[in-house]
C-alpha cells in the first residue's frame, strides 16, 4: 500500500526563518533510512512557497487568472513529500512519527489512490 507523507509547512514560520525547523542533514538522514528499509516509492522536495505561481479559472468564466505566490488565505503549504510503500496505516504512522517534518510542524498521511 502506497502512502504519501505530505510535509506541511507554516507560512509564518517560513517567513521568519524559524531556527527550530529541521535541517537539510536531518532530512537526508531520514531519506537514507527510508531507502535502507526498502519502502521508498518516490517523493520530492519543493522550493519556497513564495516562488509559487497559482493558476485558477473562476467559476462561470473561461479565462484563467494567473497570480504570483500561493493562495493568500492558506497558512499551510506543502514543502515536500515522501512516498512510502508499507503494509498498513500503522506502519505509515510509525514512519511519519520519525520524519523530521513532523517536528514542531505537521506531516499529513494520505493513501494513494490506485486508478
Amino acid at each position, binding site marked *: *500500500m502506497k*502512502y504519501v507523507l505530505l510535509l506541511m509547512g507554516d507560512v509564518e514560520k517560513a517567513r521568519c526563518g524559524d531556527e527550530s525547523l529541521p535541517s537539510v542533514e536531518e532530512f537526508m538522514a531520514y531519506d537514507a533510512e527510508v531507502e535502507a528499509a526498502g519502502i521508498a516509492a518516490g517523493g520530492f522536495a519543493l522550493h519556497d512557497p513564495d516562488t509559487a505561481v497559482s493558476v485558477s479559472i473562476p467559476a462561470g468564466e473561461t479565462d484563467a487568472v494567473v497570480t504570483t505566490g500561493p493562495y493568500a488565505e492558506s497558512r499551510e503549504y506543502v514543502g515536500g513529500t515522501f512516498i512510502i510503500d508499507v*503494509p*498498513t*496505516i*500503522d506502519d*505509515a*504512522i510509525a514512519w511519519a512519527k520519525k520524519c523530521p517534518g513532523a517536528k514542531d510542524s505537521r506531516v499529513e*498521511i494520505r*493513501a494513494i489512490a*490506485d*486508478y
Partner: protein
Amino acid sequence: MAESLPGRRAVVEELARLQRDDSPRLLAVLARRFGDLDLAEDVAQDAYEAALATWPRTGIPDSPLAWLLTTARRKALDRLRRDAAQTRRLAELAVEEDRRPGPTPLSEIPDDRLELFFTCCHPTLRPEEQVALILRFLGGLTTVEVAAAFLVSVPTMQARLTRAKKRIRITRIPVAVPPPDLVAERLPAVLHAIYSIYTEGYATTGAEVHIRTELTGEAIRLARTVRALVPADPEVSGLVALLVLTEARAPARVDGEGLPVSLEDQDRTRWRSDLLAEGIVLAEQAAHQAGESAALGPFVIQASIAAVHAEATRFDLTDWAQIAALYDLLDLVAPSPIVRLNRAVAIGRRDGFEAGLRELDRLAATPELARHHPFHAARAVTLEELGRPADAALAWRTAAECTDSPVERAYISKRLREHGRDDVADSAP
C-alpha cells in the same frame, strides 16, 4: 435425506439464530480476510440469502457457519473479479483462496473477533465511530438498532458507519492484533468503547428504557467476549467485574414510579446475587492479575470500589476508608473531576460530613462540576446530614437547574417534598 429436509420455516429460524449468535464471528473472519468491512457485510448478506434459497432443498449443513463462510468468501471473490479496479487486490488474495477448496470444518474457522475489536478502536477513528462499529460488527446489531441505541437518525448512523468503513478500507487500518508493544497502548480504547456503550445504556430512563437495557446487556456480552479472548489481562477482568457489579444493582436503582433510588436508599435484597458473586470473584481476580505491576489500571480500581459496595449488606456497613483510599488511587491513574467528586463523598462518609463538605466546597470552582447536577446533589445530601435544611434546599434547586432529565428533576422534587420544601417544577428552564 429427502424425508429429513427442513421446512422453509426451520431454515429461516436457523438463519435468524446464526445471524444473532454467529454474525460477529462470520463478519470478523471476512473483514480480516478482505480488509473491507463493507464487502464483509455485503457478502455475509449474500451468504444468508444463498442459504435461504439452498438449505430447504439440501438440508441444513452439519456446520452452517462454515457453509456460510465458504459461500461468503466465494461471493467476495466474485465481486472483486467483477470490479476491474480491484484486480490487483484480488491477485494478493486469490492465491491463498485457491488452495482451500471445499467447506472449512467448524473447528478450523478462525476466531478473528479480537482482531476486529482493535480495528474498530483504531486511534484514527473517532470515539463515536468506534462504538458504532463495535455494536454493528461485534454486537451484531443492525444499523437501525445502533441508531436507535444512540438516539440518532438512521441516515446519520449510516453516514457515520460509512465514513468509518471507508477510512478502514482506504487507509488500510489493519484487521489484526497489534504487535505486543502496541497492545498495551490500544487495549484501553477497546475497553473504554465497551464501557461507554454500557454507560450510554445505564444513564437512561423513561420511554427509552427498553432499548437501553439491551445496550447494557450488549456491553456486558462484548466485555465477556474480550475476556474470553484476553483472559489474563487485569483491566479486561476489571471491566467485566465493574459492569457485572453495576448491573447487579439495576433492579434496585429505580422505584415503583420510575424515579432513581440513591445507593443509600436501595433495597439491597433486590441486588442480583448471582451477578454480585460473579463480580466479586472477577474483581479479586483482576486485582490478583494486576499483581506485581506497578500501577493498577482504572478498571481494576473501579471494580474494587464496586466490590466494596457489593460486599456491604447494609449502606452503613460500607467500608468507606477503603473506598476513599481506592478513589485516591484512581485519581492518580485516571484523574478527573468526577473521580474527585466521588472521593469527596467517600471522605465525608469516612471522616464525617463537616470534612465531606469541606472537600466538596474545595471542588466548587472546578468548571466541569459547576453545572454537574450530581455535584450539587452530593452537597445537598451532605447539608441535610449536617442539619442545614435551607442550604440543602438551595443546593437541590441548583442541582435541578443543572439537569434536563425530567426523571432527575422529579427525583429532586420528591427529596424537597420529603424535607418540607417547595417543588422545583416552577423553576424549569
